[in-house]
């Protein structure tokens, strides 16, 4: 088992070997996270790269109060959000209109999907939906927190999430019926 504390200390000394080891330890999982927020592998890797540079830059601020993986994941999420806001490819699609609340579906389809397929479904959501879905459903942020992170109203986050959720459920149903989901028109 990797001694995280020792690994962090080695990294803080600037030892490249330790930094590589830290990277190897978390890169796969973090790329999985970045992948969910973006539309292409290249973008995900760009976010991963930017995120890890921030990790090494701010590693001295990690207080060992929680899991290193969780700390790194939060950096990745914030980096991904900044990336989406800065990137022209995503700006147009990253609009959060203050819709009226969408009724939350009570559907709870059985998901017979592999994680990869599920991620691919999430990535087919419009960027705004995709972002909020990821933040709430996967990362577990509350709508109040999401509102602060994205600079939107809490209600907007709720309604966007409801729409995203409804879309996801409908697609999951289709998949469960061996139907390929139609790609969402952007």
């Amino acid at each position: 088992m990797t001694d995280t504390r020792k690994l962090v200390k080695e990294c803080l000394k600037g030892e490249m070997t330790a930094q590589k080891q830290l990277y190897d330890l978390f890169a796969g999982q973090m790329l999985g996270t970045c992948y969910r927020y973006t539309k292409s592998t290249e973008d995900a890797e760009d976010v991963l790269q930017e995120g890890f540079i921030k990790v090494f830059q701010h590693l001295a601020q990690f207080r060992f109060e929680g899991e290193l993986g969780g700390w790194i994941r939060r950096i990745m999420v914030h980096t991904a959000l900044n990336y989406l806001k800065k990137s022209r490819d995503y700006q147009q699609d990253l609009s959060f209109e203050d819709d009226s609340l969408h009724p939350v579906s009570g559907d709870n389809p059985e998901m017979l999907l592999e994680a990869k397929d599920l991620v691919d479904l999430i990535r087919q959501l419009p960027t705004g939906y995709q972002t909020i879905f990821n933040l709430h459903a996967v990362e577990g942020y509350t709508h109040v927190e999401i509102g602060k992170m994205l600079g939107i109203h809490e209600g907007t986050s709720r309604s966007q999430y409801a729409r995203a959720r409804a879309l996801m459920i409908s697609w999951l149903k289709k998949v469960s019926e061996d139907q390929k989901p139609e790609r969402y028109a952007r």
Partner: protein
Amino acid sequence: MPDRDFEQQVRDGLQEWRIDPSDRVWIAISGQIRKRRRRWALFWLPLAVGLLCAGGWFWFNSGTAPSGKVAVTRSPAAVGQTQAGQESTGQMPSAEPRAKSAQPSTGHSSGVSGRATGVSVRASGVSAAGAEGLTAASGTATAVSAPAPTASVPATAAREQGRIIAVAPAEPEAGAGTSAQALSLRYTPGLAGISPCTPCYPDPKLAFQPLTSGAMKNTSMNPPLKKTNPPLKKWQARFYAGAGVSGQGQAFHFNTPAENAVYDNFTTSNPSNLPGSAATKDTLAARKSGAGVQIGVGWSRRLSRHWKVGTGLEYDFWQTAFDPIYPATAAANPSFFSTATSNYSTGYGERYVNGYQLLQVPLVITWQMSPGRRWNPSLYSGLSIAYLFSGEALMYAPDESGYVKNSSLLRHWSGYWEAGLKFDVWHIGKHALDAGPVFQYGLSGLQKGAPVSDHLNYIGIQLGFTLPGK
């Protein structure tokens, strides 16, 4: 609650899901980390060297009158009318002794660590490239014509009274009354020097070598977290050269800016007190500084992992110069300077440059902070035996009671202390290019057998190239 079931399923299915990034990501990350370190060095190293040079410059330029005799003589050819054959003393103001956490601000604790249990979502590793059907892109200080020096007063006593003495020639002076008076100034110079020998080794084993993702999982890129000490060479040779600021003056004495300001005001408002006080103070006291260069070769032997001793041979050429009068004082009293002391007709008096050449054999001890590693900061200090074999300077001659240009006074042995710091800035194979500040201080007075406590000093930047030996 059905909603929770859905979110929980998604969360459980995706939290541990991972895809392997392409090699280009780490190449880019490691490249950027290195670039940041280099940027750090490029900013802080020159700043530190600059501060050291500035400090050295201030120190060299802020000394007071040397403790030896101070003689101001006129040349036979050009005579002065005002103070012929007498001492003129200028009252001086007495000089005071101088002696968040990076943890993302949301405060949210990610609850992303659940496990997929009892759900039918299965996590599977997928190659990033494969997932998108893409392939990974690889990223990354007059001669004094000082002809006949006559009376001279011990500067020590004069200085204690706050006076500075000007000594006129005893001989009748031809052309007395002319304004073409060539005041010539004599003074005693001083000196210093050493050489560092501190090499370092790059360690090829620590160089980053990207591996394929498969290889990284299994082998050398995932070594146990154990510091590996690279093998170090026992003997090293180092070739180096440097440039910097040289100066001479009393040892460890500072003129504060406030003292200089008071002095300037005094001489400006009371020109009758000039030139003796101003000239001597200005010329012999403080402002002797210039440029220096050095070149050398050294050999060192490693005593332990962090300690080395070394010796070598170094050649130094150091110059010091002085401008006799404060420009501000001269500018404020142009009539005085042009009539009473013609030599100051230009308003600035004469400028004289001393030049010294030394050969040094240093004995240096070096402590290396992280031998074999990238920057390898090294501190070194040592003593050297130096032979001042050549000089173009005005030297105080006890037998002649004055200052003469006598090169024989310059041929003597002396001792120097040096200290420095260096960093490896570039590794070329097993060899290393280093750079850093170095300071050298003359332990003995510059002049042979003189009562003048005038030391020669040097502070500069040195660049070295170290060759690993066996």
